[in-house]
């Protein structure tokens, strides 16, 4: 059966949010919440979603949202999950955090929550910079990308948070991208069937931050996957499966330039940085293919 037909019609994020035009994160949130259903609490640290949900006394969300300080999402969720389980409740506890709140300021509390086996789903939606504060560099910003604090392009590579999460050996972890909402739906649904900490890292193209026209949000996500710059996979009890869209892309990735050129943030990127990015893509694809093939 087509996955589209399986996706519930219920909406847990209402229309008229205060998201930017072309925001892929609100699209992610729509499918995450559809997969999670109404018995769910979202724990949200400082990030774009703090804004997207609306201003008190209004909220765009039709499930409870607990906003918490920047560094504290996973720890807060840890307390919440333990309290629900102690009370015999199965309520899903989902952290929905940006890349800054995950890779940078929130990494300690996240690591702690994973190490303790907290029963929760941690979702990092990654627009590769501090979007809410006007696109400053984060640990997730790729090499060569311009942000307001890397005006000539970032000189360091993107932090490999997935490797860090994998080192915690969670029962389930996955990557996803807002251009593939059915894939997001399936992965969130699956993650919530596990007991213990699970992780989904969603690439979330950002028109004002990445500097492309708002109507190109889906296309930008697809280009990220087709170029191999972003790879969709899931890892269940350590066993890697590369997801269908990336399987196709891995056979014959499109030239990286097709992904970089439409984005203003990569304007004027140095040739050597493009080469480094290409080398990293090749190496990453080889590494993942080898891991998947391993018995």
């Amino acid at each position: 059966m087509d996955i589209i037909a399986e996706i519930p019609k219920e909406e847990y994020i209402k229309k008229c949010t205060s998201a930017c035009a072309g925001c892929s994160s609100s699209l992610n949130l729509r499918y995450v919440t559809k997969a999670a259903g109404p018995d769910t609490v979202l724990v949200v640290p400082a990030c774009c979603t703090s804004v997207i949900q609306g201003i008190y006394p209004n909220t765009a969300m039709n499930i409870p949202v607990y906003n918490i300080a920047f560094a504290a999402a996973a720890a807060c969720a840890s307390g919440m999950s333990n309290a629900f389980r102690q009370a015999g409740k199965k309520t899903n506890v989902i952290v929905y955090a940006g890349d800054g709140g995950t890779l940078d300021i929130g990494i300690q509390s996240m690591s702690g929550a994973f190490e303790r086996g907290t029963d929760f789903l941690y979702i990092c939606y990654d627009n590769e910079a501090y979007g809410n504060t006007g696109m400053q560099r984060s640990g997730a910003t790729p090499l060569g990308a311009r942000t307001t604090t890397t005006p000539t392009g970032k000189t360091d590579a993107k932090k490999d948070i997935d490797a860090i999460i994998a080192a915690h050996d969670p029962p389930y972890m996955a990557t996803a991208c807002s251009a593939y909402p059915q894939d997001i739906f399936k992965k969130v649904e699956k993650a919530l069937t596990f007991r213990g900490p699970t992780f989904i890292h969603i690439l979330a193209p950002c028109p004002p931050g990445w500097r492309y026209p708002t109507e190109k949000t889906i296309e930008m996500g697809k280009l990220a996957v087709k170029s191999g710059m972003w790879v969709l996979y899931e890892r269940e009890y350590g066993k890697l499966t590369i997801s269908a869209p990336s399987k196709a892309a891995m056979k014959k990735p499109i030239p990286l330039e097709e992904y970089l050129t439409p984005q203003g943030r990569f304007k004027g990127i140095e040739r050597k940085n493009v080469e480094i990015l290409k080398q990293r893509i090749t190496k990453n694809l080889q590494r993942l293919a080898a891991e998947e093939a391993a018995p």
Partner: protein
Amino acid sequence: MRKIATGNKAVAEAVKQAHPAVVAAYPITPQTEIVETMADYVTSGQLASRYIQVESEHSAMAACIGASITGVRTFTATSSHGLLYMHEMTNWAAGARLPIVMANVNRSIGPGWNIWAEHTDALQERDTGWLQVYVATVQEAYDATLMAFVIAEHNDVLLPVMVNLDGFSLSHIMQPLDTVEPGDFIPPLHLPHAIDPKYPTSYGGLTGPNDHFRFRWDIERSMRDSVKVIEATQKEFANRFGRSYGFTEDYLCEDADVVLVSMGTFGKEAEVAIDILRKEGIKAGSMRIRWFRPFPKLALAGKEVVVVDRDYSFGSGGILAHEIMAQTKKDVCSVIAGIGGQEVTYDDLAGFVRERRMGTEFWFGVTGNV
């Protein structure tokens, strides 16, 4: 039941009897005995709680917040740097109106590393919206912890409560402890704003200036309302268990010409000092401030006041002295003593009263009156 216990054990015993659903804590000297004892209670099945062994104090308070908003009882304990590290989250806990109870074992702040008693750690939290009580004996540490849950969870309060006990000079000393059966003294917690997915609500999202301002006033209104809740709780405790507590503990203050004001264990030493002074014909009394937040109305009219601060606000003065001066509009003799665990005896305290000069500040062992 009568036993012998340390201040830390007394706190842990009271927490066990309050049955928190979730305890989240991180170890720090001199608080460690509390978290070790809690871990033992949970592991041995004496306490049916979830004990979250977090990776930091910031996460300890965040975990308590996440648990508390589901409507269950929570507890944590910390000290010194741990308290300062969780400062962002102590603000969040009060702002989110969560009745979290925390024991703070008062300790100085580095550098250099110093593990001994001082009140500057907790007093740096004075503006966060937490109620703060300072205790002086093992028995009081136990009693105040039991009462803290009742007060914090009262629907006229719904603010977190910090029980402060001096590092080592109370946390690690052994005194008699008479435990009670709390029964329904601690009623079940009914958090009116608990998360319920059946009634989806957003908490702590973007809030405009007018609403934010109103919410701050709500905290202050509850802080003021907490006065009668504290009074009623202490009265009920006395009725049930026979031990009476006030906002302050006054010793021979009524007819005193001069009152020595202090907090924590110094307050017990001060009573010995007063006996010495009385024998010398000096009409002195001791007032031990128990509740620092809400700050009580003090009966100090017509008396000279000597304030001992085991803390300091650089560029301003002794924190307790300033609170008292602001309220009483009188010059006090401000003594700064005991910082970093400096030894201060009852003879020293008696000396502060004998040598008092109103309107001056004196760093014991360091400066003359300045």
